């Protein structure tokens, strides 16, 4: 069993950084577990959201960042809505995802790819373009026809139009992406 040496492993700089980037005070979390109780992803998580919060409190960077849960999180914000200490837990999860990417510790590449594919279409069209997301995702992951069986139904109901609909503010949306890229570099 892996034993964590708290006094050595504890990285309080990491904790402060998470607090700064997410704008949340993690010390106020008293580990009641209400976030985990309401989390719709809890059943597939490898580390529960309350445990992730606790890992951040302890300054255990790897435990907080190296897990699949961050990527399985639906960003539904049920945790934030229910937190008795008014912590925006979803914002903390989002912060941790960004940090995990920076560290290169993403634990679920396909999910990350899906996110990228989604954002690519938003970048290009100003909104989501389902068929584009699918194609982009397949291209990024080299995954085949995993969910192809739902295509006929989706096509028939016009949930997957062939031609992307482009919104008016497409250029403004694209500027957001540009600004983000500039800020990061």
């Amino acid at each position, binding site marked *: 069993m892996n034993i964590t040496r*708290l006094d050595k492993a504890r990285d309080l700089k990491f904790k402060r950084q998470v607090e700064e980037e997410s704008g949340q005070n993690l010390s106020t979390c008293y580990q009641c577990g209400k976030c985990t109780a309401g989390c719709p992803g809890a059943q597939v998580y490898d580390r529960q959201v309350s445990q992730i919060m606790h890992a951040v409190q302890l300054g255990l960077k790897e435990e907080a960042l190296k897990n699949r849960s961050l990527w399985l999180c639906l960003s539904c914000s049920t945790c934030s809505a229910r937190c008795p200490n008014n912590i925006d837990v979803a914002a903390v999860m989002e912060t941790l995802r960004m940090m995990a990417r920076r560290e290169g510790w993403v634990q679920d590449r396909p999910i990350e790819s899906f996110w990228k594919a989604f954002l690519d279409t938003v970048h290009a069209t100003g909104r989501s373009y389902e068929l584009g997301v699918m194609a982009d995702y397949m291209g990024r992951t080299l995954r085949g026809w995993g969910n192809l069986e739902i295509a006929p139904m989706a096509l028939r109901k016009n949930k997957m139009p062939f031609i992307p609909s482009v919104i008016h503010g497409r250029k403004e949306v694209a500027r957001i992406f540009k600004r983000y890229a500039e800020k990061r570099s």
Partner: protein
Amino acid sequence: MKIGVFVCHCGSNIEATVDTATVAKIALTYPDVVFSEDTMYTCSEPGQENIVQAIKKHGLDGVVVASCSPRMHEPTFRRTVERAGLNRYMFEMANIREHVSWIGRDREANTNKAAELVRLAVEKLRRNAPLYAKQFDVTKRVLVIGGGVAGIQAALDAAESGIGVVMVERESTIGGKMAKLDKTFPTIDCSSCVLAPKMVDVAQNPNITLYAHSEVESISGFVGNFTVKIRKRATYVDWDKCTGCGTCTEKCPTKNVPDAFNEDISTCRAINIPFPQAIPKKATINPDYCRKIKEGKCGVCAKVCPTGAIVYDMVDEIVEEKVGAIIAATGYDLVDWTVYKEYGGGTYPDVITSLQYERMMSASGPTAGHIHRPSDGMEPKNIVFIQCVGSRDCSIGRPYCSGFCCMYTAKQAIMTKDHLPDAEAFVFYMDIRAPGKMYDEFTRRAQEEYGVQYIRGRVSAIQPTVRPDGRVGYIVRGADTLLGESVEVDADMVVLAVGVEGSKGAGNLAEKLRISYDHYGFFMESHVKLRPVETNTAGVYLAGVCQGPKDIPASVAQGSAAAAKVMALFSKPKLENDPQVSVVDIKRCVACGKCIQVCPYQAIEEVEIRGQKKAHVIETVCQGCGVCTATCPQGAIQVAHFTDNQLLAEVNALCLS
């Protein structure tokens, strides 16, 4: 005789499993019963009024209520019948709730048993006689045993109301555990700053007589008239002469005496004054270490004492005091934590108790408030606190929560950060129990403001290691159950939040006071919810942790409550005894003296009546225990209200009819 029977439903408590209407109907067939009915709540105001009306309407001479245990409501109904003009002892109670409805589900069997119990009560009542209480004088002084904060509060409140107080303290100073504390939660105000003025008040109040370095030797008598023998243990210093100048404690050459006030983390001289604010501030010689007393050589203190107060051949003195009430406020001691071998069992010098840590942090303590670990004086960097050491642990027979450890651990962790800003505090806990005004907020502050790291889980082992720099470290291994992983901390020092138990000798004192105590040395209150200050011995009250774990505010509150109880007791010009006492039938008494030997209250004396020796019961001393009745070979001594004839009538009613 005309008897009325009232069968109570107690809501559904009784009615659910007992057919009370049938019981009432059967009761009408018993001898002398002229009236019987079932009522919803007999103890309620309309229920009692119903009894009063029935007594008047039917001219009843006695009443049976079949309901709950007499423990709670016998006094209620006795007052009821008295209101209607009957003697209060012309009343009997049949317990058909605890003894019937709550313990059986079979309605028919329950109904039969309830009817049988009513039959017993009726048969006993038929043989009852009116009894009248005797009045006796009260000594309006109170004995307070223990000079901790609870005892001090009780003594000051009683003295304030004009009652004379005798305070007995085992140590050479009052102040108790609170005097040892550095700060108090949740305000972090200085403990001795708030306590010392009260201690001074005790010393200066003309109504308070203080016996420090003394113990209660024996107690006799009864409520209103106790005689207490107090052993003033030899101090080897004439306290009337001692001015507390401290010259002796500076010059004494014996320096290796464990300092009990400082929880043995330092040493003191063989002649010592525990701390600067001690009350009384007098020196005491420890005879186990004094060279003059042990070997006859030395005598330095006698030479330097400016008032000639040293008396090497002093012996214990017994003094007698008369009091009307007693408040026990004997406090607590720490559980023996050395049973925990996983924490080193007392062999690791830097694993200390929370009380030792208090002394270390106290400005008047041996390190003048500087935190240095005992082994090498190093200023600790990582300090681990372990909660629930000796609390909530059935394996060592201490299943209870000691109540205040969560709070003082939070306080000590905060204080650690105050004293040593660069230090890290880790707290291993099971649950954080902080139910008090501003308490939970306080534990949150420790974490949010001071960055104390709380880890939910137990510690499995403390392993000493030698670090590369040659210093000793302590690897504290435990679980973080929230993370679901094992964790370790390389600690410089470990502080154990050791649980509490009744103070040493509490059982012995309880026997002298004739009160009950539990497995853990805590005194038993009369009723856990409704009589938390009283004991089952009239005139004996409890204050502070001697009754159960509690923090300073609760101990102070109970001290005041105990004083209020004593004031109420003393507010009457005379007290009345319980007339359920032994009575001697002098025609049968052969003066064998067996009753005098067995009486635990010295309530029976030998008298001469018309030239013949007879036993005589002092009614105000007799507690009606019945030991004499059981012992008397002649059947000459009977407890009123519980005569052999009454008890046999009950047995006959059950077995013969």
